């Protein structure tokens, strides 16, 4: 198939009576990197979580590589395998070593034999610069290292699309660079990525498109030069002036 990797159509999400997403629609093309920015509470996390249906959208559709995940009887677990997710607080499995964190899903979900899974795991941990830490528990790793393990863990399922929810906002400043470097590598290799982040340097460098999400609405989108350089919307401008 050659359609877009991700299609989000008129997505609405209510928490009780609070409307958090008010009809969000967009597409992400294959190998495209889209960065979402916007004020806290604007619905960025909720949007990402609706895309892999960790959160149940109130209405609207999400298609991943042409497959609808929001249908009533959609094979949700199967579709989720194709969508990697990286969380703000890493969410590593604390009882498992770095390697075991990476190999668990390939073994249990895909039925990959242990030997093969471990080889894949070592390879991915090496890729994120943690070859020496395979046997460490998450508690023995720094925040930046943990987030890199989390990226390797997601990549182990060979996803078509990666979702990042503020992957560096819980990190000490000196560790942000190492995580962004891994993400830049991924983008360069052609991974399709949807990233919530306020790392403007990263966004300028790797994003094909920036979306500004506020109060559950995409107010503005465009290439980074345009959104950062000459934002059309007053709200975008005032947000950027606070962040930059």
């Amino acid at each position, binding site marked *: 198939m050659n359609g877009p990797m991700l299609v989000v159509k008129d997505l609405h999400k209510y928490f009780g009576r609070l409307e958090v997403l008010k009809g969000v629609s967009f597409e992400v093309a294959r190998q495209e990197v889209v960065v979402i920015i916007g004020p806290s509470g604007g619905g960025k996390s909720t949007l990402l979580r609706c895309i892999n249906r960790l959160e149940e959208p109130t209405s609207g559709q999400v298609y991943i590589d042409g497959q609808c995940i929001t249908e009533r009887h959609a094979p949700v677990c199967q579709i989720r*395998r194709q969508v990697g997710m990286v969380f703000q607080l890493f969410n590593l499995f*604390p009882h498992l070593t770095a390697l075991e964190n990476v190999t668990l899903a390939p073994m249990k979900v895909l039925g990959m034999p242990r030997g093969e899974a471990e080889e894949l795991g070592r390879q991915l941990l090496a890729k994120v610069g943690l070859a020496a830490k395979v046997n460490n528990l998450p508690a023995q790793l720094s925040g930046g290292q943990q987030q890199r393990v989390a990226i390797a*863990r997601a990549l182990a*399922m060979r996803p078509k699309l990666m979702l990042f929810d503020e992957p560096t906002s819980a990190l000490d400043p000196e560790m942000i660079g190492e995580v962004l470097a891994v993400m830049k590598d991924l983008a360069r290799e052609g991974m399709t990525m949807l990233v919530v982040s306020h790392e403007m340097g990263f966004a300028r460098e790797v994003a094909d498109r920036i979306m500004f999400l506020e109060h559950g609405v995409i107010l503005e989108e465009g290439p980074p030069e345009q959104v950062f350089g000459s934002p059309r919307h007053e709200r975008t401008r005032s947000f950027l002036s606070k962040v930059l």
Partner: protein
Amino acid sequence: MSLDWQVVERYFPFLVGGAWLTLRLTVVTTALGTIIGLFAAIARLSRFKIFSWPAAAYVDFFRGTPLLAQIMLIHFGLPQLFGYKPNMVVDAIAALSINCGAYVTEIFRAGIQSIERGQTEAALSLGMTPAQAMRYVILPQAFRRVLPPLGNEFIAMLKDSSMVSIISMEELLFRGMISAGRSFRPFPIWITVSLLYLAMTLPFTRLVSWMEIKLKREHRPEGR
């Protein structure tokens, strides 16, 4: 009045035999109770009412009624209702296990709920089914956290198993009653019985404290 400590010597092997049965009863019923409690906790946390409701009713009933009444109900009540011959050992084990299971259900429920929501989300985002997330991610972590309360439950069962003396199970308390009656020396006998209970519970009390300290030290918040 002479306390006559010699009766202790005479009845000691008899009492130790009772303590041995108490210990075996406790190990068996806590093990069964743990299995019952694990499944009941998973049922209790299910979003489907056909699972969660019976589990809730089970917990409420067996935590909200006296163990003695439960033993009587199982040993005398059910055989009358269904017309079969009661079996003392089976009924004692059943009553204790089912009672223990109700408490363990709550222990596991709290343990499972104490695992951060992000753990389930990470597991699901990797394509695991909710059952796989429970089995490979949540339960292994919950198990560690519930070890101290499970240890406390074991200690409680050591003491509560004395209740089955009411249906003539010859465990420590029952043998204490026999010894005290036969010897006419209640004080030396009952202090011996008490010390035998203490000798069994104390190592576990210490073990639980040690586990609590160890877990507390391990449980630093993630991140940073």
